[in-house]
């Protein structure tokens, strides 16, 4: 019996101080009546406290499902039980846990941002780069008809920054925007 401290089993052991932590769970639901309620009941039944539900009905995943993001809080030792109960109930859990949106990156976009529909650009970044826009600063010194710049701070899942930046590059080239990416490699990030 090896007593290795970084054994993943040890990390999953319950905390004993009785505290609660916030978690985000990302689900994909089939577009049928009652599906959302069915997905949420295992959370409450297993000691989770629902904080918010982000239900994007108009937004269909490539598999034809509806993505739902659920913020909840629970004692850390209960969280795995909640995810297991969701999966036992046949709910498709895409991502669970605190690593969701664990990284932040900033990008600067340059171009005819307003003419190219800035709000559409932002929502496409959220969808296609799987990111949440935390903050936006716009600089349009020559007016919104001219070339302007925007700095966008994005929250993305840990380890997904390369894929997210690739998606943003593709949106940028489609909309003829210059994307100034952060340098992530080495110790310069």
């Amino acid at each position, binding site marked *: 019996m090896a007593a290795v401290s970084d054994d993943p089993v040890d990390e999953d052991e319950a905390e004993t101080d009785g505290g609660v932590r916030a978690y985000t769970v990302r689900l994909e639901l089939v577009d049928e009546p009652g599906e959302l309620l069915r997905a949420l009941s295992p959370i409450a039944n297993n000691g989770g406290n629902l904080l918010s539900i982000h239900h994007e009905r108009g937004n269909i995943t490539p598999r034809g499902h509806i993505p739902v993001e659920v913020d909840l809080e629970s004692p850390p030792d209960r969280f795995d039980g909640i995810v297991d109960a969701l999966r036992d109930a046949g709910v498709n859990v895409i991502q669970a846990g605190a690593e969701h949106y664990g990284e932040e990156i*900033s990008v*600067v976009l340059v171009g005819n941002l307003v003419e190219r529909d800035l709000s559409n650009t932002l929502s496409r970044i959220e969808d296609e780069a799987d990111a949440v826009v935390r903050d936006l600063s716009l600089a349009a010194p020559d007016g919104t008809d001219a070339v*302007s*710049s925007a*700095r966008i701070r994005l929250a993305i899942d840990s380890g997904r920054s390369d894929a997210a930046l690739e998606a943003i590059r593709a949106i940028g080239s489609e909309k003829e925007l210059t994307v100034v*990416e*952060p*340098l992530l*490699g080495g110790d*310069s990030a």
Partner: protein
Amino acid sequence: MKLAILGAGDVGRSVADLAGEYGHDVVALADSTTATVDDDGIDIAGALERKAGDEALGSSEPDDVFDADYDVLVEATPTTLDDAEPGFSHVTRALEADRHVVLANKGPVAERYEELRALEADSAGSIRFEATVGGAIPVLSTIEDSTPQAVTAARGVLNGTANFILTRMAAEGLDYEHVLAEAQDLGVAEADPTFDVDGTDAALKFVILANVLADGGFSLEDATVEGIQNIPGSALDLAAEDGRTIRLIGEATRDGVRVGPRLVPENGPLAVTGTRNIVQIETRNAGSLHSSGRGAGGPETATAVLSDVGRLPPL
């Protein structure tokens, strides 16, 4: 070593001027139209004076350089793209005559690396090209010392003109066109700055780095290149609000080459100012190394050429 120098621009002239200080003789110096050749050593001061006065370097043809009794050909003609001629043919002739070649010309090493290495394999001579990447900064010799296999990536700023423009834009809140005009007045930017600001010059250097890391396989067309022409002052202002700035950063790995404007921490190592260059060498076993210095200029680049000459084995 006896040097034959092709190209009498800033670099070629400085190599001739400094060769004696480094213990080498110059037996030939040529520009694109004339040459001076003397197996006992040319009159360097006289040749440089004639060049400064727009006179012929000497009475010989540029081609006569190859008949001189030289050990090392210094290829310092202007960089050309695609077939990298006439530089590539110059290197070929010297290697086929079993002589060493030291290049300051980026073209052959960036565009035809594998062919150069094949020619070298059949020759008693060898090629070195420290001067093609980062001027005075010892980049290739650092990679060589760390052994290329242990280097995972090279990143950094290798174009002083673009870096100067971005630095001034950030400091003065001015737009690209305005700062470019200022840089041209100061002689920092050339009359046609295209290759500096569109990223081509930096890309050639990072292609050379990728070739060294992967032992060939890259040319300019394999690089993803974006310039700084579209960066307005407002983008630098926004970056600064976040403690960042924008630099024209290149990255070379075994998987590819990419050059473009990137966000870097304002006080981080890669945010060098003015015409300064910096290279970060990421190693597998020793973390990151940073070398910073003057990436261009006659005497600066000539020191890299002469260091290479010093590393060559006797023929």
